[in-house]
């Protein structure tokens, strides 16, 4: 691997600003710009965000949902110099409020969020299905949704002892979410979000 640019520490990353609006993930000490997804990508994120918020409100849960607004420091390789920003995150309201005056990043030794979603794009496909599955599992995030418009399927990772068992949903199959058991969504509905 060639490393032309010096690696960033996690602290460097927190303080980093290049005077643009580009948001970055940190992967093994390297800045990875978050590309602007397709319109479809954005529609799915917004749709799930609305659905989760609706569930939270109906059941009066002390949770909140955020769209790519919260980072999570992730174990990977030799150091903790990776920060992921999931497309949608559900977390306790108190945890979100505690970040009001600091960087919105869940640091290590902090409790995990409740649910995260990644919407797959060609450039993030491998990470979404592989590295992040490992990392989010280690972080003990109870539920991980991988929404894949490329192959028209929604995969739910259900955590058991730090490792996700996967359940795939396609077409008219109704997604069974242990976190949101009242959701009545088919894979097709999620993938057809406008």
């Amino acid at each position, binding site marked *: 691997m060639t490393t032309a640019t010096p690696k960033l520490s996690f602290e460097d990353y927190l303080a980093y600003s290049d005077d643009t609006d580009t948001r970055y993930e940190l992967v093994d000490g390297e800045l990875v710009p978050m590309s602007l997804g397709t319109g479809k990508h954005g529609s799915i994120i917004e749709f799930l965000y609305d659905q989760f918020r609706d569930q939270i409100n109906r059941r009066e849960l002390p949770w909140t949902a955020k769209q790519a607004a919260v980072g999570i420091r992730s174990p*990977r*390789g*030799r150091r903790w110099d990776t920060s992921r920003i999931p497309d949608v995150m559900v977390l306790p309201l108190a945890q979100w409020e505690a970040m009001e005056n600091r960087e919105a990043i869940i640091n290590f030794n902090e409790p995990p969020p409740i649910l995260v979603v990644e919407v797959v794009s060609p450039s993030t496909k491998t990470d979404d299905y*592989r590295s*992040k599955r*490992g*990392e989010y599992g*280690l972080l003990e995030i109870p539920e991980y949704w991988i929404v894949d418009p490329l192959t028209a399927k929604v995969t739910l990772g259900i955590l058991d*002892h*730090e490792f996700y068992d996967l359940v795939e949903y396609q077409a008219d199959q109704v997604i069974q979410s242990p976190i949101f058991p009242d959701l009545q969504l088919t894979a097709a509905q999620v993938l057809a979000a406008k």
Partner: protein
Amino acid sequence: MTLTATKMTFEEFLNYDDGTESLYELENGKLIAMPSESEINRRIAMFLVATFLKLGIPSTRLTLKTELAVSGARLSVRVPDLVVLSEELAGVLAGASRSIVLLEMPPPLLVVEVVSPNQEKRDYRYKRSEYAARGILEYWIVDPLQQRVTLLEWVEGLYEEQVYSGDQVVVSPVLAAAALAQQVELTAAVILRGG
């Protein structure tokens, strides 16, 4: 969320001494005593050491019960049954006062766990995630209880799984690359019998 008793930090773990010879793992801040080994588990580990030596892997790159720091939700420490070190890692460890692979060191090439009763979740789930995140190229789960050998190969951040039983020949890319001598055919049955 319930607040459990104070969690042990990595530094506390390194300094921990209860005056016994017991080996401990640190699992997300919890101290876990290593169970004593059954005779079959010991035989399997020793047979694999002997086989790896026969394949030409130098003894300096094979280690039993070396501690291995891994990232869980917190920093954890595992004590794998058998580890194959890279040449680079063996060099880094030479002269160390405690045989522990720290997080900032290169990852081992291969880790073997021989499953003990009631340890299945640890070996098949926790460690599978931890070793993948640590970038360990191959993880073998040798399971005398279920009579199978699971070979996990690291591919782009996650393990691909291959399960062997009976007379099936175990195919290990790491061994093939590390071995100097001629390949020996290693079947699941022979590994599970311990030779």
